[in-house]
């Protein structure tokens, strides 16, 4: 079908004055002459050598990048495993930083355990039921206070009607500088609250709450010293910690008696419960023996060990509370 013919509005031969100030480019639409072989070659699928060189350089750079990435990942793995810390402590042979009588081997770094402080107080919040004061945690608190500058505060939650005065002063007297929270390395906020189990909160974004006095004790202990590097010994410590809480403190009379017998036989071989040095096992077992009222009925080795514990001088706060 032929279209409606319109007469041309303007002639095809208009003269245009091209501007001379602009950069001139060859007309890309104009028909090419026969003297442009390279371009023809491109259109046939061959590749310009310049482009090839560019590609080769790019591949080289990518390869180097992948190698770097692998190297960094390897490094990251080694830095975040616990062994790295121990390697440092063993090789640097540092002794305890403070002048306290603590005999815990090895040192730990608060930044590694808790994350950098970002210029603000790192506050550990412990919720405990006033009906079952967590003696182990009080002992660990006093050890922490000797090692670091700790800001300790005690609060009573509205879910609890009232609390005896010794529970309000169980973390010791108020620090003179307590208005300047940033000056402290660590905060320890104890809240007496109606909770079924002891609970600890630190970083709400990165950590879920830690429940159970045994677990909180493990966390706090790691701020003082690492667990023994020997896995068998570490497991032994853990086992005693659990025994202390579940069978000694919360167990029936029969279970308690069994634990005391086990303690007795273990202490017949070694001065301390897990290896040649004091460990978390000794701290927790001592507190649980005290709290369960089993001191008088303890067998001979246990009595001797109880005396040795007392000589360490850590357990003042616990004994004060039980009076």
């Amino acid at each position: 079908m032929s279209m409606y013919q319109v007469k041309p509005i303007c002639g095809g031969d208009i003269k245009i004055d091209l501007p001379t100030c602009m950069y001139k480019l060859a007309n890309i639409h104009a028909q090419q002459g026969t003297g442009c072989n390279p371009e023809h070659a491109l259109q046939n699928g061959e590749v310009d050598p310049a482009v090839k060189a560019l590609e080769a350089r790019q591949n080289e750079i990518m390869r180097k990048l992948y190698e770097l990435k692998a190297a960094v990942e390897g490094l990251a793995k080694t830095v975040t495993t616990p062994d790295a810390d121990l390697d440092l402590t063993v090789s640097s042979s540092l002794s305890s930083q403070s002048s306290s009588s603590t005999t815990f081997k090895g040192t730990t770094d608060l930044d590694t355990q808790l994350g950098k402080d970002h210029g603000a107080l790192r506050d550990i919040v412990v919720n405990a039921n006033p009906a079952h004061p967590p003696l182990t945690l009080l002992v660990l608190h006093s050890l922490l206070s000797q090692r670091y500058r700790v800001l300790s505060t005690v609060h009573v939650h509205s879910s609890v009607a009232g609390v005896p005065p010794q529970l309000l002063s169980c973390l010791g007297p108020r620090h003179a500088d307590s208005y300047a929270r940033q000056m402290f390395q660590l905060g320890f906020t104890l809240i007496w609250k109606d909770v079924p189990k002891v609970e600890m909160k630190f970083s709400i974004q990165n950590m879920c709450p830690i429940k159970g006095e045994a677990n909180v004790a493990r966390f706090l202990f790691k701020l003082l010293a690492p667990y023994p590097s020997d896995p068998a010994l570490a497991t032994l410590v853990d086992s005693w910690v659990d025994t202390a809480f579940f069978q000694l403190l919360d167990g029936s009379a029969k279970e308690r008696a069994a634990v005391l017998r086990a303690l007795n036989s273990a202490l017949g071989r070694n001065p301390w419960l897990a290896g040649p040095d004091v460990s978390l096992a000794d701290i927790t077992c001592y507190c649980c023996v005290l709290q369960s009222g089993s001191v008088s009925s303890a067998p001979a080795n246990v009595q001797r060990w109880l005396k040795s514990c007392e000589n360490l001088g850590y357990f003042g706060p616990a004994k004060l509370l039980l009076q």
Partner: protein
Amino acid sequence: MCVPDRALVRVQDLTPEKADQLIWLRARIHTSRAKGKQCFLVLRQQQFNVQALVAVGDCASKQMVKFAANITKESIVDVEALVRKVEQKIESCSQQDVELHIERIFVISQAEPRLPLQLDDAVRPDGEGEEEGRATVNQDTKLDNRVIDLRTTTSQAIFRLQSGVCQLFRDTLTKKGFVEIQTPKIISAASEGGANVFTVSYFKTSAYLAQSPQLYKQMCICADFDKVFCVGPGKKSSHHVLPPCAAFTLVRSLRCFQTEIQTVNKQFPSEPFKFLEPTLRLEYTEAVAMLREAGVEMGDEDDLSTPNEKLLGRLVKEKYDTDFYVLDKYPLAVRPFYTMPDPNNPKYSNSYDMFMRGEEILSGAQRIHNAQLLTERAIHHQIDLEKIKAYIDSFRYGAPPHGGGGIGLERVCMLYLGLHNVRQTSMFPRDPKRLTP
């Protein structure tokens, strides 16, 4: 001597002890329902109500029963009735063990038949309204007819609580040796500047309504009154070096208003208010660290936006399980010119905010008591010294170090009860769109 000839008994005192007594009572008709030869009425006084009965018999004729059934709702009536014990508890009334058998009934003040809103609808929780397809009343209608809306049990509870808060506030401060003062409400210069200043015509010139009595309280401190407070519209304030304990005593004492709190919770359910004793005090740097950990990007000296304040409230609630805390050592850059800088760190100030359920209820600080430093800070904030000359002058003749803050009464009630709109705790609220009732 004038003895009333009619001893009116309160509805809340209608208990089985009064059984078989003939008493007079003045109350409102809450509902009336005729059923053949009887008419059942529910008579209401504030949050208490009781069932009453007019039956055809010795004292009442058929016309009287019809008259009783036709009395409009909300009318005020005087009733002479016998108190009778009931075997089955009347669940729908506050007085569940008795009912009234009416012998005489008089209408004292009649209400118009068409009420702008029904009290039962105004008290219905929003969720229930949607589920059962029953009406609820929206806030504007309630506020337009505040006189009726305030009669609901919820409103009665809210404002009785608020009155209690105000009373507790006065009592707590007075016990601590504070003096209550009255400050001028019309002032010559806009005290804190800003757009929300109301101008009034004043003799041949104009003046402003005072936004805050702060400047006058400070002058009183310089006048050796040591501890002062004043309660009034706009802001309620106290000036002392340790306000957190007063605010805290308030929060703890509010526990004695359990009935009121439960009444409000029936219509507006909320989580019970939790707090720590002594009050939790966090520093601004900790707040910034917590917010950054939660993904908020902010500078060390940035102010907290309202969404950030609410987020911080949730974070603090999660970590410490408290709805009430104090945030201390705000950055100097975001506080008014009269705030005393922190002596240990020039970037920060001795100023604090208190929060309830993540919302600010009080902003306070130590004020600068040195005229020279005050002038420097005013210049730094580019404030016209002429406008505040009288204020600076008051510190030139010996001024003690002092500080304090202002608490919002309505906000405290709103936040304590877990309500969401401050108009609910404001009796006759004013806002840009509302000037009546």
